[in-house]
């Protein structure tokens, strides 16, 4: 009965389980995506169909919608595990907690972030996004949505044991999302003017690296509080 699981194996075991559960529970993948699409389609109805206006607001609309969709889907990140006791088992497993947390966030991002990135260009077409901006849109979403997942997971970890989630969660994490929103939308704006935007991407990349390193510890500490 020897113990011989490496950290890498433990990481992928957890990742695989979470993906497996989500695939058997397809609503978790499609609901946030549907929300994202619906919010974006509401905007032309709200501000009018003029292509100039829409292409001006397109980066902001897509990003705000992505932000809300990410937050909405995150609410379920630890909930099921908390309810059925898996979370306690995760905290008590001999594997390092930040690593386990990272696996869960990664699984969540694969399930909700990636589909969102894939569907974003289609929505950009509906909003008449400038032709030069597609690359920037995809790049900022690819670098930015993991940051959203990591930061959001802190808020989710803090509120997972509470009965009233929703509004409190948005109050906790939306302020933290502001920098990502600012740099992502201005990168897209810059690209539409044919200006270089690699600096913006570098800053978002730095945020990604920073949150990859620090967020798992904050999430782990928060989970220990929530399961107390």
């Amino acid at each position, binding site marked *: 009965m020897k113990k011989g699981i490496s950290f890498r194996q433990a990481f992928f075991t957890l990742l695989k389980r979470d993906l497996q559960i989500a695939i058997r529970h397809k609503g978790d993948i499609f609901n946030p995506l549907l929300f994202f699409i619906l919010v974006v389609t509401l905007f032309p109805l709200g501000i009018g169909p003029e292509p100039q206006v829409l292409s001006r607001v397109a980066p902001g609309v897509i990003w705000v919608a992505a932000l809300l969709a990410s937050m909405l889907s995150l609410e379920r990140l630890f909930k099921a595990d908390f309810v059925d006791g898996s979370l306690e088992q995760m905290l008590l497993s001999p594997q390092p907690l930040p690593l386990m947390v990272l696996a869960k966030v990664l699984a969540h991002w694969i399930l909700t972030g990636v589909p969102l990135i894939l569907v974003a260009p289609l929505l950009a077409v509906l909003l008449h996004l400038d032709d030069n901006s597609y690359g920037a849109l995809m790049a900022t979403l690819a670098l930015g949505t993991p940051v959203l997942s990591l930061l959001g997971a802190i808020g989710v970890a803090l509120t997972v044991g*509470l009965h009233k989630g929703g509004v*409190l969660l948005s109050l*906790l994490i939306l302020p*933290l999302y502001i920098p990502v929103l600012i*740099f992502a939308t201005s990168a897209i704006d810059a690209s539409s003017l044919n200006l270089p935007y690699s600096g913006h991407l570098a800053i978002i990349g730095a*945020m990604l690296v920073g949150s990859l390193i620090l967020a798992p510890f*904050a999430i782990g500490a928060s989970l220990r*509080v929530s399961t107390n």
Partner: protein
Amino acid sequence: MWKWLHSYADPERAYNLSGKLLPWFAMLATALVGIGSVWGLVFAPVDYQMGDSYRIIFIHVPAASMSMAAYMAMATSAFIGLVWQIKSADWAAAAIAPIGAVITLIALITGATWGKPMWGTWWVWDARLTAELVLLFLYLGIISLYASFEDKVLAARAAGILAIVGVINIPIIKYSVEWWSSLHQPSTIRITEKSAMPTEMLYPLLINILGFGMMIGAITLIRFRAEILARNGMRPWVRELAKAEGVK
């Protein structure tokens, strides 16, 4: 077996000490804010550009600077409470949070009442105003997270983690908002309080900043004392107090 209940030295001493400090803070705060405000309103010279409307800065600037200082104080005591598990630090952090939120709100409102005559609009998406608004959201998040937990020991730990996450994020948010407003803002609208201020204006301002600091200290002490009592309701000395003050 009940030994630890009687070794209550720690919270009780904190309660008594803060009770001794409170009158001093309260007196200093009243005196300083009174002098500073009267000086600013009545005796300070008129600004040749902004007229008398500039007199708002005698409360706006202290409130704005103290809003950040209060956050730092709260986050520091939350950090002490988390790392060294000192419970009175947690209670102090819980006491500061609502005060910080009110001060931030004051900074925002006085900023708006100053902006209206100066810029012709109540609100501009100026970097400082926006950062102040985000700070208010951070305060509100911490307060409602603390309020959401039934068990206040856990509440303090959760709110403490959030406060520390906020500290790491505040510079990033501040920088990004400043950068964002420099992109979007026509440079005509700028708050120019940094320009050399005559000493007759500077003194009342400094007095008021100090006064606001003392005032925050005094209100913190009041709330801290109440927080100590609320968290130590099972200890004999608090029960004695409750029996003396409680109604039938």
